[in-house]
């Protein structure tokens, strides 16, 4: 469904992606892990055509999208939705208007149908009755949930998640993860997630890939990935896991 072949990208004179080859299975939840600054978000932006590779190809459903522009690119993007790291809600619109935005822009629906679908999605993410609020009045976790509702409302074939739980407390991070897994099981979309929340990602992902030195160092089903013998990957996984344990312990001490 999504395939990256030899993708290279240099930003500000610094090579970020140095030949990424990645085949993302359809209908599965694939998580890309890697250290900060490795280019995980850059990789995700290539998948949806927000960035074009200097070299290489990006294929979505048999269409090479890296050189597409205008309407042709928009036609491909109709298959996608994306949950941004900071939720990227339109701050001049209310929660309701944010979730309704893609419906109003892309589908010619009656306002009653728009309202029904928006309320349904807000209820699914636990934000029923919050439609009148503006993004500035919401907490980080609530913004992410609104972003998730907006991503889901068009029932896309592919959803990209850019660090959906970064910056959230462990309980809210679990809530978001549960929502993503629940929605994925319900709707069966292809999910590509960028995260470094170890070990949680092993519990929720079908496949895990690791980006290291601008290339995919390893990709395997979640259970197999944890058994890797590669020392660099083992170190990343174990240090990440320990950091998470420390974080959880600190949270439990506070309460």
């Amino acid at each position: 469904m999504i395939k990256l072949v030899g993708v290279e990208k240099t930003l500000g004179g610094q090579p970020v992606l140095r030949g990424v080859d990645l085949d993302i299975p359809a209908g599965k939840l694939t998580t890309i892990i890697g250290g900060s600054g490795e280019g995980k978000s850059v990789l995700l932006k290539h998948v949806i055509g927000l960035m074009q590779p200097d070299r290489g190809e990006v294929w979505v459903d048999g269409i090479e999208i890296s050189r597409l522009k205008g309407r042709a690119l928009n036609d491909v993007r109709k298959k996608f939705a994306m949950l941004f790291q900071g939720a990227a809600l339109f701050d001049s619109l209310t929660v309701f208007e944010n979730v309704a935005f893609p419906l109003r822009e892309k589908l010619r629906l009656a306002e009653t149908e728009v309202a029904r679908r928006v309320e349904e999605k807000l209820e699914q993410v636990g934000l029923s009755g919050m439609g009148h609020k503006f993004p500035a009045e919401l907490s980080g976790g609530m913004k992410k949930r609104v972003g998730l509702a907006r991503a889901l409302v068009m029932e896309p074939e592919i959803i990209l998640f850019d660090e959906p739980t970064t910056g959230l407390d462990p309980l809210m991070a679990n809530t978001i993860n549960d929502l993503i897994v629940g929605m994925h099981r319900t709707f069966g979309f292809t999910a590509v997630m960028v995260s470094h929340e170890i070990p949680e990602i092993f519990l929720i992902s079908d496949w895990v890939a690791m980006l290291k030195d601008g290339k995919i160092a390893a990709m395997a089903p979640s259970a197999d990935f944890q058994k890797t013998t590669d020392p660099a990957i083992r170190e990343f996984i174990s240090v990440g896991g320990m950091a998470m344990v420390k974080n959880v312990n600190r949270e439990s001490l506070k309460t």
Partner: protein
Amino acid sequence: MLIFLVATFAWLFRPPLRPFQILKQLHFIGFKSTFVVALTAAFTGMVLGLQGYYTLRKFGSEAVLGSVVALSLIRELGPVLASLMVTARAGSAMTAEIGIMRITEQIDALDTMAVNSLQYLISPKLVAGLIGVPLLVAIADVVGIYGGYLVGVNLLGGNPGSYWSSIESAVEWKDVYGGILKSISFGLIVSWVCCYKGYHTRMSAEGLGAATTEAVVLSSVLILVWDYFLTSVLL
């Protein structure tokens, strides 16, 4: 910058057309700038009336005060001052708004939803600049002429009949046409430069500050430079 302008114009004529967005921007750029533009024009007209009256009196020509005030405003000061005020009030706000949308990935979010950000965000602002600035200039011209009348006639005792009749005899269609042409091109410069700088802002608070400053300075300088070249062609 030129590619940005051409692409924005190209998206303007593709469906869906966005009349509500255009009206919203017209309200922001045009209606909300009315007070500051009128205030600037009123005092400019009053100063012209004051300076003009005392200068013309030396030559015994107070009767042509109206034409001096009106021609100065319609040909030059109305379009230039109104555009500079729109740059300061609305242009800087446009850059900041678009820049924040860029930094917080709201523009990327639009693109991922297959909504072209140039069409949704920039085209309505460009149209609003093209329509709003000429209307503001028209208001500035009228208010300025009345400002000159207030000082030259009501305060300094000039002849009201001479004031209006000198305007009627001196101002030609060519002057009005030149003023309209200038105000349309200045409106384009303000919207174009300010939107471009916001759209291509660097991803930091410092970058946003720099983009806003660059937008105001570049728009103002371009208005003054373009004014010279356009005047040399129109005269």
